[in-house]
């Protein structure tokens, strides 16, 4: 990747969530803030004791509120090797200071760690005062915490979604979807049902529930396309605890409902069968997918098919 800020779509596709977080998180969000500091006049032995006590492997050296150096276990080892553990911190500290700003993004710190051979970075505010210390371990912890937060947020969304409209208070909350189904429109046959299924999934409905509603709606939709005079309507009402679907048309009505409910019985024409329909399973399928099915039919006013799926009781 180039240093320029522009990314190609291809590059963008390769970016992981962790890398993204590197650009989102500020150093101030992941650094250690309770920083143990040393003064340059301390002895190396005092520094060693403090580091053991605080279980740290390095610390900035401060004089008059300014960072003047940094001490790490490596410097302690050098002092021990020289047998000069009684010497001052200022004699052994590293004065080649590499720092970062608290307002910088974590990715900046990662770049510094990659380029320079340092184990920790003193973090400064806009007035160059020490506000924290950053190690690679802090970055790892910060990223993991952020990922955990992402995950929890997703859990909350999933929980909410599994309880449709739970947080909305009203005497009766519902969402109504309506679809006009055109007679003989085989080209779009099943499109409305797929939209219904997709809407339910988007609202967070359980996959099984969405599938059952989809199958019932599909069969009802195909019935409107195949068996009506002028097509009809699909109406779906989604409530917190149930989904009610209604398919209605203006005729010609079902002659013998009992027969229509027999598996394999169909009045579909040869032409319709050639399209893969008219298996005589439509109403049978609907009945097996929904919790309640009611048919009102007459020659004069057509057919109303009511289908209800309850969300709190799983079928089968």
């Amino acid at each position, binding site marked *: 990747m180039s240093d320029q800020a522009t990314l190609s779509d291809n590059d963008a596709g390769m970016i992981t969530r962790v890398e993204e977080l590197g650009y989102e998180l500020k150093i101030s969000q992941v650094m250690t803030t309770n920083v143990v500091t040393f003064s340059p006049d301390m002895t190396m032995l005092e520094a060693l004791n403090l580091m053991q006590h605080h279980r740290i492997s390095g610390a900035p050296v401060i004089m008059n509120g300014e960072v003047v150096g940094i001490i790490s276990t490596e410097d302690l080892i050098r002092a021990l090797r020289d047998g000069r553990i009684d010497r001052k911190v200022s004699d052994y500290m590293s004065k080649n200071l590499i720092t970062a700003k608290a307002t910088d993004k974590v990715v900046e710190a990662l770049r510094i760690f990659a380029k320079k051979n340092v184990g920790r970075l003193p973090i400064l505010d806009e007035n160059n005062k020490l506000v924290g210390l950053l190690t690679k371990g802090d970055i790892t912890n910060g990223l993991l915490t952020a990922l955990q937060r992402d995950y929890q947020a997703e859990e909350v969304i999933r929980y909410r979604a599994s309880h449709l409209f739970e947080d909305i208070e009203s005497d009766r909350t519902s969402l109504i979807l309506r679809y006009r189904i055109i007679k003989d429109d085989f080209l779009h046959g*099943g*499109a409305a049902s*797929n939209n219904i*299924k997709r809407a339910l999934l988007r609202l967070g409905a359980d996959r099984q529930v969405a*599938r059952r509603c989809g*199958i019932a709606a599909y069969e009802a939709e195909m019935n409107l396309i195949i068996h009506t005079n002028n097509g009809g309507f699909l109406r779906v009402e989604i409530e917190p605890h149930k989904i009610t679907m209604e398919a209605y048309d203006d005729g010609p009505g079902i002659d013998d409902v009992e027969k229509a409910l027999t598996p394999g019985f169909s009045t579909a024409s040869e032409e319709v069968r050639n399209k*893969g*329909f008219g*298996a005589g*399973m439509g109403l049978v399928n609907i009945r097996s997918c929904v919790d309640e099915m009611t048919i009102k039919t007459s020659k004069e006013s057509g057919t109303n098919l009511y289908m209800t799926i309850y969300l709190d009781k799983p079928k089968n």
Partner: protein
Amino acid sequence: MKITEVIAISNGTLLTPDVNLDREIQGGFAGDLMSDVLASVQAEAVLITGLCNPQVVRTALIADVRLIIFGRGKKPGEDILNLAIDENLPIAASPLGLYEISGRLTQAGLPSYEMEMNLFPKD
């Protein structure tokens, strides 16, 4: 079984080049009547069919089918392929018949995902 494996065993050709092929196929279903598919196919199956129209794709989407194989040398048209590509559903075509494809897949270890239907429902 992997989608590419199912297609290879079926002697099929993938017709939707850019769709995601990472999902696993759990079982198979063969049939030409879409209501039969909806009545008894379990989710995550391959649908093997000789019916060739856009409703096959819509039925497959409703039934959570993961791959459609058009058998008997049926070649789906642009309308079918475009719909499938939009929905990220892989489609293959095979010169073999439905019985042959089903047999080969069964032998390769892919189970039937057709639910048994009750011949004499009690009601």
